[in-house]
């Protein structure tokens, strides 16, 4: 399924999701308060050490790749301005914060995350009933692969008949599919008792 959770079980998988998320928030707050390059670099060393200890360092590094370009651009920009230090700090913080967050993601099942989220959303329950929020989340997870597959099939259908790049017609077709699917889903919900 679509998730970043590591399929390899580690000891961190057994920790309660709420504790891990709490520690993550604490870590991030401290990280952004640390002055200077050296201390911030130490902040990055912590998630790196944890990833290594968990035996997940390969996947962990792979998940940081999206930041490569951003980091390079920020460093280049600050180098060009002659202010390398704030640039290095910005990049280190970014990598450390994401690295720590990814560790939580990699060691926590989606359903556990969802439970924490629903717990956090409880104060909102007069506005957003938890059961309905849980249902909306489940529906979205269910239809994400459906709509992605539809987009892919439609782009293949496009490529089969055209040499030009896919235009706005694809967006139209996928959006129409979402609208129509919503009608079917509403009906299927009603057929089984509605959202109550």
């Amino acid at each position, binding site marked *: 399924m679509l998730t970043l959770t590591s399929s390899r079980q580690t000891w961190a998988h057994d920790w309660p999701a709420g504790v891990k998320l709490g520690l993550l928030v604490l870590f991030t707050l401290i990280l952004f308060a640390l002055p200077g390059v050296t201390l911030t670099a130490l902040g990055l060393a912590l998630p790196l050490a944890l990833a290594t200890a968990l035996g997940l360092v390969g996947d962990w590094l792979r998940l940081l790749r999206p930041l490569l370009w951003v980091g390079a651009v920020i460093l280049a920009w600050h180098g060009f301005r002659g202010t390398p230090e704030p640039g290095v700090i910005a990049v280190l913080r970014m990598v450390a914060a994401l690295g720590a967050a990814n560790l939580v993601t990699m060691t926590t099942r989606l359903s556990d995350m969802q439970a924490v989220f629903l717990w956090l959303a409880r104060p909102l329950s007069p506005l957003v009933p938890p059961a309905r929020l849980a249902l*909306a989340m489940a529906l979205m997870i269910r239809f994400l692969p459906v709509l992605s597959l539809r987009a892919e099939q439609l782009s293949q259908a496009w490529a089969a008949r055209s040499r030009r790049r896919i235009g706005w017609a694809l967006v139209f077709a996928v959006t129409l599919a979402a609208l129509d699917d919503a009608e079917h889903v509403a009906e299927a919900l009603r057929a089984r008792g509605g959202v109550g």
Partner: protein
Amino acid sequence: MERSLARIALFAALIAALGFVPKIDMGFGVPITAQTLGVMLCGTVLGARSGALAVLLFMALALLGLPILAGGRNGFAALASPSVGFFLGFPVAAFVTGWLMTWSKQVSTVATFNAAVFGGIVTLYLFGIPGIAAKAGLSLTEAFWSAMVFVPGDVIKAAVAALVTTALARARPGLVAGAKEPASAQF
């Protein structure tokens, strides 16, 4: 009730699905994808309230760790990167877009384009630019100019949103909220 819930969930999935369409990365960590197009469409098609709720649901799932943001990132990656402001501004952008749709009596291409530009670009950048400044260690002015790189792409997206929305209003009359968001729009 079931219908508005289903529409919110399906459009949250749509934003994610549009994010998987091939992208062009132009630096500063804010890749150009169809994802913001999805945010605009939530506003123009579902209306202000449902549109914003769809975007919030999408963000919630991204923050649970699903890699559904452009470039296969999750919510934490968005919070850690210079695009944080754009991420946090998504629901407001959808809401403003949907609200601006109510200014015109029917769904027209021009009115929808305007709503998408003011909601999906002007409003969104109000959130996005301070984010770039904070995360990349730039001044607001520098952040403003660096963000301008994305404006042409976003104007094209607003135009696509307008074309798609008017075509949908023709294909499925009654399903596009546009000017008249259904009174039953609640979560």
